[in-house]
Each structure stands twice: as structure tokens, then as C-alpha cells.
């Protein structure tokens, strides 16, 4: 309690670890961060225990950066705990912002995922069909595992979130700016995404090469094209999610000569990322014949994967229809 530096925490839920890497990506700047704040919880890097957090007073942590989606009951409990203990809860990265890649699990349910992972997949040998159980007595003691939910959720579908840092993973620059803003108290209204509100095209280096009136008779996939590094992706018949995606990532993927896949999510004026993207993509199809339109669209083998790669839990429909148990 004698320490006057603001307390900060990091936690990870259903995540790949990339957001943790992003923090480390601050490189030397991380020293400034560490100097300015007191990190009180960071499972990937430091050795604080759960009971340490539980012992803290409510709202004693100034800001918690929580990455990863909510997939299990443990993650849900931690989200609630950290919410209680923090003044500000920041959804860090696409998974906590929108559900992220784990969110694509919403096309299945627990039973089918377990079946795939523990029985069906080619490298699995599991003749007894053992699957994880939430509770299992061992030597007279109950051993518990977190419950694996049927549905992946974004952080704000579980607790109230103060700010969002978008991206898979958020660029170091964005994180540094966010920490700055936090420390200086210069924050936008609650619920804001801590990035600009224009789509990626604004900062895309290939912007000028997109023709004013572009219509497409065909869609191609990245592996089918020798991608011209100077030309707009859409003008090369590749579906780029840039027009539908919030900018602020400095067009990293474009500069890597790949179309944008939409990790920053929608801009503020859009309610359902995939729905709006679908509208834009379909509108520029150059055909008025239903059969021809269908054959052009057949080049999109996985609409959900294209349109909701990072945002399925956050979408209006959230998940594929759950069959009755």
C-alpha cells in the first residue's frame, strides 16, 4: 500500500500468447512502462498467485489488460474477479475484443470439438474415448477442471469493458499510446476502441491504385495469384477486408503482400462486421444473372471464415445454431 505507482495487471484467457508477445514487443519501451507502473499480476511472466489477486482491495488495480476469449468457466471467473479488482478493464487484442480466432469454434459445440480433438483427429490414439471431465474423483478427492463452454464469448459479453485495444495482436505502437493515455488520464469516452475510426484503406500504401469504379467478375484466392506488391488487392480480384476493417495497424499485412483479414474489427458505425463486409463485397460483383452470381460466389468456400474470422462471437448471431442437446 505504500507503493504509489499505479497498479497494472495482464491476464490471458483463450489465447495463443501473441498478445503477450505484443507486450514484450514494446522492446526497450517496456522498461519505461515497468518504471511507471507496478505490475501486480502477469501469469506468463511473473509469479503472482490467484490468492494474491483475491486479497487485493476492489478497484485497487488501475488497469487490467485482458487478452484472449472466454472459453472456459475458469476464464469467466477470472474475468469477473479482475473486473472487481480493477478500475479499468481493457480488452486487449482481437480475442477479447471480438472473440478472435478461437471464436470460430462457435461453428461447433463442445461435444463435436471434443470428439474431433480427443477421438477423431488422425494423430489421436484414445481407444477408451476418454474426454475431459469437469469433476472426477481421485483417491477420494474431487479433481476439477474448468467447464468448457459450447460457446466462445468476447470479454464484454461476460463483464463490462472499459476500452478495447484491437488487433491480432495489437501493434506495439497502439499499446504504447494506450498506456500513455492511461497514465496521463487523457482517455476517450468509456467503451471506445483505442484506435482511429477510419477503415484500413485510409492508410493503405496501395490506395491510389484502386480504380474508381471497380467491379469484379471473379474472385481469386491468395494462392492463385502472384500478388503484385504495388497494386490494390481488390483490383487483383483478391478479397481484401481492408475497406471494412478499422485501421491503425499501419497496414502490416498489406505490407507483407497479403490481403487484410480483418483483425481490427469493424469501425464504430458498424454493428455486424461480417454483414457489412458481405454487403460491400457482393455489391461490386459484375453480374445481374442469379446463376452467374452464384458461380462467382462459389469462389468463397467459407463465408464465415472470410467474413467473421476474428469476430464471430461478437457478431449479431454469435454462433452457429446449437442443436438441442
Amino acid at each position, binding site marked *: 500500500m505504500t507503493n504509489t505507482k499505479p497498479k497494472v495487471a495482464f491476464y490471458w484467457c483463450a489465447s495463443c500468447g501473441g498478445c503477450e508477445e505484443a507486450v514484450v514487443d514494446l522492446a526497450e519501451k517496456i522498461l519505461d512502462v515497468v518504471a511507471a507502473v507496478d505490475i501486480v499480476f502477469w501469469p506468463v511472466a511473473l509469479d503472482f498467485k490467484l490468492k494474491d489477486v483475491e486479497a487485493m482491495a476492489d478497484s485497487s488495480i488501475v488497469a487490467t489488460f485482458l487478452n484472449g476469449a472466454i472459453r472456459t468457466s475458469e476464464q469467466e471467473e477470472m474475468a469477473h474477479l479482475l473486473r472487481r479488482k480493477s478500475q479499468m478493464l481493457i480488452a486487449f487484442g482481437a480475442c477479447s475484443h471480438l472473440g478472435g480466432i478461437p471464436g470460430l469454434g462457435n*461453428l461447433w459445440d463442445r461435444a463435436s470439438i471434443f470428439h474431433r480433438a480427443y477421438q477423431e483427429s488422425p494423430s489421436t490414439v484414445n481407444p477408451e474415448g476418454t474426454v475431459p471431465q469437469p469433476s472426477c474423483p481421485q483417491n477420494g478427492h474431487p479433481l476439477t477442471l474448468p467447464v468448457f463452454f459450447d*460457446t466462445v464469448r468476447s470479454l464484454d*459479453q*461476460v463483464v463490462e469493458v472499459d476500452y478495447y485495444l484491437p488487433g491480432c495482436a495489437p501493434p506495439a505502437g497502439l499499446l504504447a499510446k494506450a498506456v500513455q493515455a492511461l497514465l496521463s488520464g487523457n482517455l476517450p469516452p468509456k467503451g471506445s476502441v483505442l484506435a482511429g475510426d477510419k477503415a484500413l484503406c485510409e492508410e493503405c500504401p496501395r490506395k491510389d491504385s484502386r480504380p474508381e469504379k471497380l467491379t469484379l467478375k471473379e474472385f481469386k484466392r491468395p494462392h492463385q495469384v502472384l500478388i503484385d506488391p504495388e497494386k490494390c488487392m481488390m483490383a487483383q480480384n483478391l478479397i481484401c477486408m481492408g475497406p471494412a476493417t478499422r485501421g491503425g495497424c499501419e497496414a502490416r499485412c498489406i505490407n507483407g503482400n497479403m490481403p487484410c483479414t480483418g483483425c481490427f474489427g469493424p469501425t464504430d458505425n458498424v454493428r455486424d462486421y461480417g*454483414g457489412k463486409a458481405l454487403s460491400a463485397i457482393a455489391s461490386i460483383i459484375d453480374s445481374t444473372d442469379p446463376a452467374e452470381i452464384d458461380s462467382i*460466389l462459389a469462389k468463397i468456400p467459407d463465408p464465415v471464415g472470410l467474413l467473421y474470422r476474428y469476430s464471430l462471437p461478437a457478431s*449479431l448471431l454469435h454462433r*452457429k*445454431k446449437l442443436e438441442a442437446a
Partner: protein
Amino acid sequence: MPDGFEPKIVAFFCNWCTYLAADLAGTSRMKYAPNIRVIRTMCSGRLDPQFVLYALANGADGVLIGGCHPGDCHYQEGNYKTLRRYHLLKRLLKEYGIEEERVRLEWISAAEADKLRTAVNQLVEKVRALGPLRWCAPVEVREPSEVTLQ
């Protein structure tokens, strides 16, 4: 399928064709199923796929989209955009596991009151047979964390 289930269909009609056809059905005193709720836009081209998703997510059992016949759009080409978006939307809905028959696009001109009546009645009947969509899962409602042991 629950007894006495009456589907709720949200209908998006364009002002110049389908909305007028519905008006004509009214002035002609035609009768059709009372399950549709019409939302009027000036052109079917205004129909943002987000609206269809929103309707399905918030209690609609089906959606009917009405526009002018290809070539007859009051604004020249709006309905072609609707057509293209509709095709991609259908593919998306399939992946979501929503039955194909629940969302329907019909070209209905201002004079085709009878076609409107038929389209409404047919859609209502099909959706009634499919049962309620019950997608209403408001974001705020938490999923039960109980699970049965295997």
C-alpha cells in the same frame, strides 16, 4: 413443433414496387396471413444485410425481402445489388445453420398484389412447419455453466 406457434416474419419492402403491391392487396381486400411486419425502405438496395441478421438474432422466425423485378428498379439498379448481397447472405446463413426457407427474396411489382399474397402465405406456412428460430440470445444473458457429467 410447439402447438399454436405463429411465426413472426419481418418484411423489408421497397417503396415503389412491393410496398405498393401490399397497398393494392389492401385496397383489393385480399386476405393473407397476419404474420408479417413490414419495414419500408425506398429501395431494396437500402437493405443492409445487417438488418436481416439483426432481425433473425432478435426474434424473427423468418425474413421476406421484396423488391422490383430486375430491370424495373425505380432507381435503375438497386435491386441488382440486393440480389448479389442476398446470394452471399444465403451462403452465410447456411453456415450459421439457419434453414434455407426462412429468408426469402421475392420480386413483386406494384401491380402484383396476388403474388404478394401468395409469397406471404407460402413463407408463413414454410416457417410455421420449421418451427420457431428462437435465436434470441441477448448478449447480456449468460450461458449456463452447468454441464452434465459424461
